C-alpha cells in the first residue's frame, strides 16, 4: 500500500475539525494540537485503525510525538 503523509494529515484534519485546515504539518506536535485531551488519543487510535488497519499500542502512540512519527510507526507496521 502506498502511503503518503499528506493523506494522514488530511485524515487528522477531517477528524479533528477544531484544527484549522492546512495548519497541521508533518512536524506538528500531536499533543499540542488544538484542544488536545486524553480523549483525542482514543480518536487517533480509532482513526489509524479505520484508515490503515493498524491497531497502535499505547506505547507506540506515546512515543509518537509528531505526525511524522505517527506516519513512520504506521509505515513500519504496514511493511
Amino acid at each position, binding site marked *: 500500500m502506498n502511503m503518503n503523509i499528506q493523506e494522514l494529515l488530511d485524515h487528522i484534519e477531517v477528524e479533528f475539525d*477544531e484544527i484549522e485546515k492546512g495548519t497541521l504539518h508533518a512536524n506538528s506536535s500531536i499533543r499540542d494540537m488544538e*484542544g488536545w*485531551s*486524553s*480523549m*483525542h*488519543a*482514543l*480518536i487517533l*487510535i*480509532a*482513526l489509524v*485503525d*479505520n484508515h490503515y488497519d493498524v*491497531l*497502535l*499500542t*499505547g506505547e507506540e*502512540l506515546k512515543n509518537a510525538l509528531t505526525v511524522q512519527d505517527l506516519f513512520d510507526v504506521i509505515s513500519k507496521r504496514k511493511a
Partner: protein
Amino acid sequence: MLPVVSKIEFYLPQTILTTEELSEQFNRDFQLTLKNTGIRKRHIRKLNQIGSDLGFEAAKKLLDNFPEYYSKIDFVIFCTEGLDYKAPTTSSTLHHRLGLKEECGCIDMPMGCAGYIYGLSLADSIIKSENATCVLFIAADIPTSVIHSGDFDMRVLFGDAGTATIIEKKETGGFGKFVFGNDGSGAKNLLVERGSTRSPIDIEYINQYADEPQNLAHGRMHMNGLEITRFSLEKVPYLLNKTLDKNNVLFDEIDLFVFHQASLIILKSLKRKCKIPDSKFYVFLEEVGNTVSCSIPIALYHAELEGKLIRGNRVMLLGFGVGYSWGGTILEY
C-alpha cells in the same frame, strides 16, 4: 413458538448531571466534549439508591403497565456489578419486593457491558428447556458510585440506570445462537478496586476518600480508556462476523445493529470498520451516557419508540467490555 424479548421498561434516577456542568467544572471546552462523547447528560443515583433500587423501579413500572405478568413470571435474573449482599442473592430480595409468586427461580449475574447478552441467553435456554415460561430479566448499574469526582473521562462517559425485560414465547420471532468470549488478561484495564472480597475496604481507604461526594464506599473504578478502545476495535468486528457465521445469516440480512453503547468514539469507529450503514446502526448515548448492562435494552426501547425497530426485524445485539468479556446474538424481534 420461541422465546423472544416481549417487553422492555427502564428507569433513570432523577438527578441529572449535564456535560455542560462537567465541562465547566473541569475547565474543558463544552462543545468539543459534546462532539467527542455524543453525551449531553447522564442520570446520577441518590446516595441511598443502589442498583437493585433502580432495577426495582424499572420492573415495577413494567408490572404496573402489564399486571398480568405477576402471575406469569416464573424466573428472575438480575444482572449488575453492584449486588446488595454477598448473600442472599439480590434477585431473591427483588422477587420479594416486587411481590412475585413463590414458584419462581431467582439468580444473580454479576456482569457488566456484556451482561445483557448473557442474561438473554440464560433466559432463552431456561425457556427452551421448558424449565420456565416467562423470565423477568432485570439489569441495573450504578457506575457513578465507583467513579472518583476528579476522573473527568469516566464521569463524562457513565450514567446510572435500571431496566426490566420480559422474555417469553411468542408466535413470531426468537433468538438465534449466541456467541461468547472471554479474555481475563484485560481485567486490569477496567476494574473496581476495593469493590469486593479481594483487597476489601479498610480504614486507610475510607480516610483517603472521606471527602468524596459519592464516598466511594463501593470501591473505585479504574479504566485504561486506550486499552479498552483497542480491545473493542479488535474484538467486536470479529464478534460480529462470528455471530453472523454461527447463525448462517448474511451481513445484509441484518435490519438493525444495536451494540453496547460504550462511547461515541468506539461506536463511530466500529460502524466505519464494520461498514455498517448509518440507517442500520442505532446509537442512544446523548441522554443517558454509557449505562453498562442497561445500554442495550435502553437502546432497543428507544429504537422501537422511534420506529427504527419493528416486530419482525432481525437485530444483531453485541455486548462487550469489562472482563474482557463479549457476547453476541441475532434477535428476530
